[in-house]
C-alpha cells in the first residue's frame, strides 16, 4: 500500500526531522501516554508533541533496576530504562516531559526523570472518579499545563490556534476510528497488528502528515481483499500496549486468531470520542479527555470500564478476550479477577489472562498458552 510506504518513510526520518526542528527553536514536548494529555495544547503553542510509548525490550527493564526496585509496572520501569540507557533518541531529546499522574506507577516515571536524569518534568493529576469536583480538578490541571506551555514556549495559546489543533486531532481520531471499525466485518480488512502499528505511529509522526496518510490508507483499504481464513475473533485489553511490544498480537494472529479490537489504558491513542469544540475550549478538552474518556482500571467505581468492555465485545462480536497486563500493575490484576466472572455471566465467552515483564523467556510459554486458548475457542470452549 503506497500510503503505508509513505508513512513508513516519514517515520524512519522523523528523529532527524525533529532534531532539525529543535535546532531551529521548536520545542519538543514528550508525554506519558495514558490518554489524559491533550496534544491539542502542545500543537496550539507551536511545539511538537511526542508520546513516549516504547516498550517490550528487556534491556531497559534491566537498566531500571539501578534506579527503582522491580515492583513497579514494567512499562513504567522501561521508560526509566530507555532514558538512562541513552539509546532511544526520543527519550533524550525532549525539552519538557508532561506526566498526567494517574497512579503511583506513572508517577514513578516523573520522579525518576526528575531525580536521576534532571529532566524538565511537569505533572498534573488525574482523579480516580468522575464527579464534578474531579472534573474541576482535572480542568485545573489542564489550565496549569496551558500556563506552563505558554511560559515554556513563549507562545500564547490563542483560541483560534487551539481550535485548529482540535480540528486536526479530531480528524485524526475520526480516521483511526473509521479504520478500526472496519474490523467489525466478518473478514477484517486490517489486522490487529497493522492497526496497532498505525495507532502507535500517531504518537510520533507529524500530525498533519499522519492524518493525510490515514486518509489515503482508508481509501486504499476499500480496494484491499479481506483477510484469509475466518479465525476466532479476539478483544485484546489490558494495562499497556507499547510500541514494539507486539508479541501477543503476533502469536495470536500466527495461531489463527484475529485481534478485532483493543482497549488499553496506555500506549494506544484513544479515538472513540472527539472534542466538541462548541463552548469554552479548555472545558471541551477536559470533557473529552476526562469525562468522556473510558476510564482505566484505577477508576472507581470500575463499572464504567467493565460495562464498556462487555459492549465492545458484543459490538465486535468477539469469541474471547485476552487480558494482557504488565507485572505489578495491581489495578489490572485485581480487576481481572472479577471481570472474568462478569464476562462469563454476561457473555459466556472465555478470557485468557497473561502477564509480561518484557522478558524474552516469556515468548515460548506465551505461545503455548495463546495457542491453547485459540484452540479452546475453536472447540467451542466457553459456550
Amino acid at each position, binding site marked *: 500500500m503506497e500510503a503505508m510506504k509513505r508513512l513508513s518513510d516519514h517515520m524512519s526520518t522523523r528523529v532527524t526531522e525533529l532534531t532539525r526542528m529543535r535546532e531551529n527553536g521548536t520545542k519538543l514536548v514528550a508525554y506519558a501516554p495514558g490518554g489524559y494529555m491533550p496534544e491539542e495544547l502542545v500543537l496550539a503553542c507551536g511545539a511538537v508533541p511526542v508520546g513516549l510509548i516504547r516498550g517490550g525490550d528487556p534491556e531497559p527493564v534491566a537498566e531500571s533496576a*539501578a*534506579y*527503582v*526496585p522491580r*515492583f*513497579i509496572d514494567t512499562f513504567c520501569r522501561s521508560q526509566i530504562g530507555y532514558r538512562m540507557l541513552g539509546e532511544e533518541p526520543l527519550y533524550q531529546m525532549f525539552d519538557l516531559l508532561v506526566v498526567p*499522574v494517574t*497512579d*503511583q*506507577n506513572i*508517577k*514513578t516515571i516523573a*520522579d*525518576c526523570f*526528575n*531525580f*536521576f536524569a534532571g529532566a524538565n*518534568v*511537569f*505533572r*498534573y*493529576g*488525574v*482523579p*480516580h*472518579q468522575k*464527579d464534578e*469536583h*474531579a472534573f*474541576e*480538578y482535572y480542568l*485545573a*490541571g489542564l489550565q496549569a499545563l496551558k500556563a506552563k506551555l505558554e511560559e515554556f514556549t513563549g507562545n500564547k495559546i490563542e483560541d483560534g490556534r487551539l481550535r485548529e489543533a482540535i480540528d486536526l486531532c479530531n480528524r485524526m481520531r475520526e480516521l483511526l476510528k473509521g479504520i478500526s471499525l472496519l474490523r467489525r466485518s466478518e473478514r477484517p480488512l486490517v489486522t490487529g497488528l497493522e492497526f496497532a502499528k498505525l495507532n502507535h505511529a500517531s504518537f510520533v509522526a507529524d500530525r498533519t502528515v499522519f492524518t493525510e496518510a490515514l486518509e489515503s490508507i482508508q481509501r486504499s483499504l476499500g480496494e484491499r481483499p479481506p483477510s484469509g481464513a475466518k479465525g476466532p475473533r479476539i478483544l485484546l485489553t489490558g494495562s499497556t500496549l507499547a510500541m514494539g511490544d507486539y508479541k501477543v498480537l503476533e502469536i495470536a494472529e500466527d495461531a489463527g486468531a484475529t485481534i478485532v479490537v483493543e482497549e488499553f489504558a496506555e500506549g494506544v491513542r484513544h479515538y472513540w470520542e472527539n472534542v466538541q469544540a462548541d463552548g469554552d475550549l479548555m472545558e471541551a478538552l477536559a470533557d473529552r479527555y476526562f469525562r468522556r474518556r473510558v476510564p482505566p*482500571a*484505577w477508576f*472507581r*467505581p*470500575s*463499572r464504567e470500564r467493565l460495562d464498556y468492555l462487555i459492549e465492545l465485545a458484543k459490538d465486535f462480536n468477539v469469541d474471547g478476550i485476552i487480558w494482557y497486563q504488565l*507485572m*505489578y500493575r*495491581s*489495578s489490572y*490484576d*485485581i*480487576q481481572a*479477577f*472479577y471481570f472474568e*466472572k*462478569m464476562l462469563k455471566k454476561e457473555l459466556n465467552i472465555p478470557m485468557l489472562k497473561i*502477564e509480561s515483564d518484557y522478558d524474552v523467556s516469556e515468548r515460548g510459554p506465551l505461545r503455548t498458552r495463546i495457542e491453547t486458548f485459540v484452540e479452546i475457542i475453536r472447540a467451542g470452549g466457553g459456550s
Partner: protein
Amino acid sequence: MYTELFKLCGFEADEIQKERSRIDRAFGILGIGEEDIKRGETRLKRYLDVELLGLRRFLAIWMRELVNLVLAKEEHEKVVYSDFPMELRPLMSMMLSTDERKVYFATPGTIINMTMGQIFDKLAPFQEAGEENGLPAGSAHCALYQTRLGAMVTGAIPFPDLSLIASYHCDQPSEAEQLLHEVYGVPVAYLDSCADPNWGDWPEFNDYRVRYAGSQARKMFGMCEEILGCKLTEEAIRATNRANAIYRLKFQELVELIGHADPQPISQASLAHAFFLNSMPTRDVEGKQEALEILFEEVKQRVEEGKGIVEKGAPGVFITATISVDPGIVRMIEETGLAVRIQIPFWLSHWVVRKHPYTEWPDMIGVGPCLDVPHSCEAHVAINVENCRHFNVDGAIDFYPYSCREWVPTVMMTKKTIERDLGIPVLVLEGDAYDTRNYNAGQLRTRVETFAELLRAAKAAKAS
C-alpha cells in the same frame, strides 16, 4: 488457658472473668488454641517491654479491639471499616457522631496485624485466603489488604456495611476495596486525591489539591450519614481534634525522648503499639491517652536511671521498618547492637506540624496528604533526611515494603540523598511491612549485622 496471656496484655483478673464468654467466642472463631496462646506469651516476653505498665495498657486496647472486631456483627447493627492510609480524624469524628451500641468502627487490618500477627504469629491463613480471592501471590499486592480480605472471606471477621478508604499515599487500598464492592457488594466511600505535585512544590500548599481532598471528605461524610443514619456533629469534630492533638503531641514528646536518649530506653517494637493507635478509631479515647501518659513516665524514669536495651554509645540508626505484623525484625536490628533512634512515620517534622489556613473540617483533613510523605517522592526523601539530621544518627536502614508502590520509587533516591548530604551510610533492605513469610528477621540478620559492624568501626574511627 489464656489468663496469663491476657495478664501480659494488661488485663486485670476481674476483666478476664467478665469478658470470658466473649473471648471464648472470638478465639473460637479465630481458631486460637493452646499452642497459639503459648506462642503469644513467648513472643510478648521475647520481643516487647511487657514489664512496662504503659505498654501492657496498649496491648489491652488491641486485644479488646480484636474481640470487638470478631463479634462486631453480633453486637452492633452496623459495621464500618477503614485502614491505612486513611488518617484517624475523619474516622474518629464520624465514629463519635454515632451511637456506640449501634455502630462499630475499626481498621481491621491493623487490629489483626497488631494481634494475630505481632502476638500470635498466625496471619498466614488470612493471607493465603486473600491471595486465593482476588489479590494473588507473586504480584506484589499489599499484604495488609490480603490479610483483611482473607479475614473476611474465611469468616474470622464480618464483612462491613460500609468501607471508608483513602487513595492518597497509595493506590492499592482503593483497588482492593473495588474488589470488595464488586464481588461482595460492600458499599465503599473513597477519599480520592492525586499524588501530582511537581518537583519543587513541597512544602507549599496547593489550594486546589486541598480543596479536592476536602470535597472527597465531604462526600465520604455524606455517604456515612446516609448509610449509618447519623449526622456528623460539631461536638464529635471538637472531641476528635482535641483528643488527636493531645495524643499526637504526647507521642511526639515520647518519640523525642527515646530518640535522644543514650542508651535507647525501650524497643521501638514496643513503641509501635502506641504509634498504630494514631490511626485506629477506638472509642477508648481516655484509656489510650492514659496508656501513653503512663508509658511516657516509665520511659522517662528509665532514661533518668540510664537503663537501656542496647549498650550506651551504640551507633544510632534511622529505620523505615514500621512493621505492624512482627516485632522480631526491629528487635533483631536492636539485638545487633544498633540503637534505633527513630522510625519514619513516628516523628512529625516541622513541615507537618505547621499551621494552615483552613477552617472547614473536610478541608483540614485534606491538608494531611499535602504536608506529609504522601505529598511526593520529594517530600518523602526530604522527611527521611530530616529524621536522620534531627536525631543525629550514624546510619540509616531503608527497609522498604516491596509491595508499596508509593515507597519503592523513593528507595534509591533516599540512599543517594542521605549519603550525599549527610555523609552517613544507608543500608537498603527489601522487606514487607505486613507479611513475614518471605522476609523475616532470620533472613535479614546477616546483612544488618554486617552494617552494624561497619557503623561501629566508623564510630570508633571518628572517636579516635
